[in-house]
Structures are given as structure tokens and as C-alpha cells.
């Protein structure tokens, strides 16, 4: 179904636009069938259904007002630069807060235990992972301006960071074990040293796996939220549509007598 795409439609969040496009397309078909059943010719029914169902510029403007994201309402009170700066600070804040939260397990290490050297890159990957997830959730849920390409990029980045976190943690544990084994074969190691190695390595692995699990959960939630919000693009009836053929906007209530 080829339907008009007034510029005002662009103001609607993409997910809403897609769902609305489907609704309009289905109603167009339904109205056509109903009017045909009422005895109109195919041409008459089609023209009547189009006039009834296809939104004009005024209707799109009203729809954009109804579906205005909360972010847009709040952002209007500030300059675009101030909003951008706040958003950047928020992303940095999320990453910083994640690092602080992750510092907790470091302090929880037992006496005599030392954190593994590879714990720092694991924490860094975890902080970036949290920032990517927070940024994607913000664009999808608050700003409502996420497009499929951006969401795909976010999902790929999340997946890659989950893999990197597990890889760094695993490689770090392997390197620690290798170093400890080399030391143990050169000279006898004490029980406290063995316990410290065990504690550090277990801690590293637990941290990496915990972060990866959290990231995977975030990825799963994000994937579902994106699918729900963006829908199936293959069924987007607004893509490649001709300009509006309804230059005559009417009142929402048309009274005739």
C-alpha cells in the first residue's frame, strides 16, 4: 500500500510511526472492503477509503502532539547544547558509577589476597558495557529517536563487550595460573601464597563472569525492547512513499447539514 508521508510524520517516534502505519494500512483495506460490501464501485470505495483513513498534515501534527516523548517535553525547556552536555555527562556518570560499584568486590578480597592485574581491564570493559547499555536504553525509551541502525550498533557493541569481558577474565586467570605455576616450579610456595593466588584468580573469574552475565541480560532486555519499539521494518508502509495527495486539511469535526 502506497501512502503519503507528510513531513510532520517524521516528528513521531519511529516505533509509533511504524505501528501507526500498520494500523492505517489495515484500516484502509478494511474500509475499502466494507465500502465495497455497501455497494460502492472499486474506484469509489478506494477513493472514499483513502479520504477517510489516510492522515493529512493536520492529523499528523496532532498525532505528533499525542505521542510526544517525555524527553522532548523536558528538553524544550533547555537549549539543545545544554541537553547534549547533560546527556554526555549522564553517560560518563553511569560509567563512573559502575566503576565505583565494581570497586566493592575489590575491597571484599580476603586478607592476604591481591587483586589480579587483569581485573582492571575487566572492570574497564564492564564500565563501557554499562555505558553502552544505558545509552541504548536512554535513546530507546526516553528520547524515542533510536533508529534500527543505531540499535543494531548498540546490540553488536554490547555483545562484543560481553565477549571481551569473558575473554579478558579467562585469559587473565590463565596467565595468573601460568605465572604461579612457573613460580611454584622454581621455588616452593607457602600456603598463604597459594591461598592468595586462588583467591585472586577466583575473584577475577567471578567478576568477569558476573559482568558478562549482567551484560548478556542487558543485551536480552534491550533486544526485546528494541523489537517491541521498532517492530518489523519489512512491513513499514511509510518507506518510499509518494508525497501527500491530500492538500486539503479539514477540521477534525466536519459538520454538514
Amino acid at each position: 500500500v502506497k501512502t503519503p508521508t507528510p513531513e510532520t510524520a517524521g516528528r513521531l517516534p519511529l516505533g509509533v510511526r511504524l505501528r501507526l502505519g500498520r494500523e492505517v494500512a489495515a484500516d484502509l483495506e478494511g474500509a475499502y472492503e466494507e465500502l465495497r460490501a455497501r455497494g460502492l464501485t472499486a474506484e469509489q470505495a478506494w477513493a472514499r477509503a483513502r479520504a477517510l483513513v489516510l492522515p493529512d498534515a493536520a492529523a499528523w501534527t496532532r498525532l505528533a502532539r499525542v505521542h510526544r516523548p517525555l524527553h522532548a517535553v523536558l528538553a524544550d525547556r533547555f537549549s539543545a547544547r545544554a541537553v547534549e552536555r547533560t546527556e554526555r555527562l549522564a553517560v560518563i556518570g553511569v560509567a563512573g558509577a559502575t566503576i565505583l560499584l565494581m570497586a566493592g568486590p575489590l575491597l571484599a578480597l580476603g586478607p592476604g589476597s591481591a587483586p589480579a592485574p587483569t581485573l582492571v581491564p575487566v572492570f574497564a570493559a564492564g564500565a563501557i558495557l554499562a555505558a553502552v547499555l544505558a545509552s541504548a536504553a536512554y535513546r530507546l525509551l526516553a528520547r524515542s529517536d533510536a533508529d534500527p541502525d543505531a540499535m543494531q550498533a548498540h546490540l553488536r557493541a554490547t555483545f562484543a563487550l560481553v565477549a571481551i569481558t569473558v575473554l579478558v577474565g579467562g585469559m587473565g586467570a590463565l596467565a595468573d595460573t601460568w605465572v604461579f605455576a612457573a613460580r611454584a616450579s622454581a621455588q616452593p610456595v607457602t600456603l598463604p601464597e597459594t591461598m592468595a593466588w586462588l583467591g585472586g584468580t577466583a575473584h577475577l573469574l567471578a567478576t568477569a563472569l558476573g559482568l558478562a552475565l549482567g551484560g548478556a541480560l542487558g543485551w536480552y532486555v534491550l533486544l526485546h525492547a528494541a523489537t517491541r519499539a521498532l517492530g518489523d521494518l519489512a512491513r513499514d508502509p511509510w518507506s518510499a512513499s509518494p508525497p501527500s495527495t491530500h492538500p486539503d486539511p479539514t477540521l477534525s469535526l466536519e459538520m454538514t447539514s
Partner: protein
Amino acid sequence: VAVEMQTLLRDVNELLVLSSLRDGAKHGYQIALDVESDSGGMFSFQHGTLYPILHRLEKDGLISGAWSRGGGRRRKEYTLTPRGRSALDGRSRTLGDIVARLLQVVRGAEAEAP
């Protein structure tokens, strides 16, 4: 109480949709066609003007929309919620009062006219 014409028109639009759903769930196009035929062509939603009304009512919780499959195609169907039903009753009374007042004024003016 001052009546804003813009608000009144919006309320009438919403009332037409709510009353159309009183007897059961309907698709958007069915609401538009039914309002037009039930009013003998006096009221009609043209050029998709129904959708902002439907979506606003849905957002306000007065109607609920759900996708259903019929005839091989998924279509959105709207139903009146309990909140919508009480809003319909309340708004009908309010509109009745407004129309009664209007007629009172108009007929009074007619009676006074020479």
C-alpha cells in the same frame, strides 16, 4: 462556566468515538463509518483525523487497543474501558447541559425578537 469552542469540539469528537464503542470492540475505520452513518452524515471523520483522537483516548486509558487477526490481516481493535464508560456517561450529561443551555439562550432570544 465558559465553554471554549475548541475544547467543546474536541470533547464532541471524543464523545462520538466513545459512544461508538459502547456496544463492543471496533476497528478504527468501523468507528469512522459508523459515526458517519449513525449521524446521517452530520458527523464525519476525514483524512485520518480519527487517529489522534483514538490514540489520545488510548493514552488516557478511556479505550484500549489490541491487535487481532481477522481475514488474514492483523488489525487494531479498540474497546471501551470501564474508565471510558464512566467518562462517556459523565461527558454525555455535560454535553446535554451545554446544549440545553444553548437552546435556552437561543429560544429565549427568539422569543424576545419582534
